[in-house]
């Protein structure tokens, strides 16, 4: 018990502690450490705007998998339609399916290739 009591006698702060105390109290004077609100108005709307912006700014390599799969599937379907010599309206549907996810760069060359091939096929006829 005696040892426990003596351990609670606080020692004198060293130089590092004194300077940290001075620094923190100086910063606290500015209101930064007292929980003083920094900005007026609620932040929830702003948080939503930031989240939207962050989501929109995801680099292409991070959004690649799912849209790219759809684009590839669409492109492949378009080529298949051409290969099977689908009638013109059906070919348009396939082309639209291919164009829908064409935001993805992967789809663009497939679409171009599909259009060129399609023209050639029809010319050959």
């Amino acid at each position, binding site marked *: 018990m005696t040892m426990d009591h003596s351990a609670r006698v606080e020692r004198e702060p060293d*130089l590092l502690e004194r300077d940290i105390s001075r620094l923190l109290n100086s*910063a606290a004077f500015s209101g930064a*450490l007292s929980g003083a609100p920094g900005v007026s108005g609620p932040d929830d709307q702003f948080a939503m705007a930031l989240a939207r912006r962050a989501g929109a*700014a995801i680099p292409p390599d991070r959004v690649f998998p799912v849209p790219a799969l759809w684009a590839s599937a669409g492109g492949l379907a378009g080529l298949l339609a051409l290969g099977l010599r689908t009638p013109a309206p059906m070919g348009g549907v396939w082309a639209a399916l291919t164009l829908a996810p064409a935001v993805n760069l992967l789809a663009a060359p497939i679409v171009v290739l599909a259009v060129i091939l399609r023209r050639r096929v029809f010319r050959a006829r």
Partner: protein
Amino acid sequence: MAGHENDSKDLGFDRALARRMVAGDVAAWELLLAVYGDALYHYILCRLHGDRATADDVRQETLLAAATGVSKYRGSAPMFSWLCGIARHKLVDAVRRNRQTGQIQASIEDHIDEALPDAWVTLGTAPLPEHLVEAAETRAEVIRALYSVREQYRDALVSRYVRGEGVDEIAARLGRTYKATESLLSRAREAFRRRLTEVELLDDGPFGTR
């Protein structure tokens, strides 16, 4: 090595938060604003010598830039230091836009005070000069360093040195022993000192996490 281990623990929260922020998780952005929003404002306000209107604008621009660039945050530096790095660039932009506000220009140039990094290196071995402690730039750097250490350390430092709580009071509140609390405070002081000396990290660029 121990320093790296501590960094890794300190940055765990920031890294987890960043992963959610990148995915556009609204709750993560709300958490960012709750934990760092006001501190960022006060960091900017100190740099602007109390120009509240400009501080509000710069804070908003900083956070918008952070939203665009959060995927570039690699988690090798504290999130708050990263935000302060962006803020510094936005402060320069604000000065360029508003040349007639000479005080803003002075505040930023003052920051490149060569005495400050030297003072951090000798912290604990030589007393800090009073004018340096009271400088607005010093306050800004103190805010940056304090919000760059983990929350547990931040709370301990503020409790002990700002609110003046005794070690036994903190120990009772945290449910720790006296010795363990002393040890926590010692680690908190060391982490804070280390973050103060990292001032040059901010010069790495707007996304200074290299």
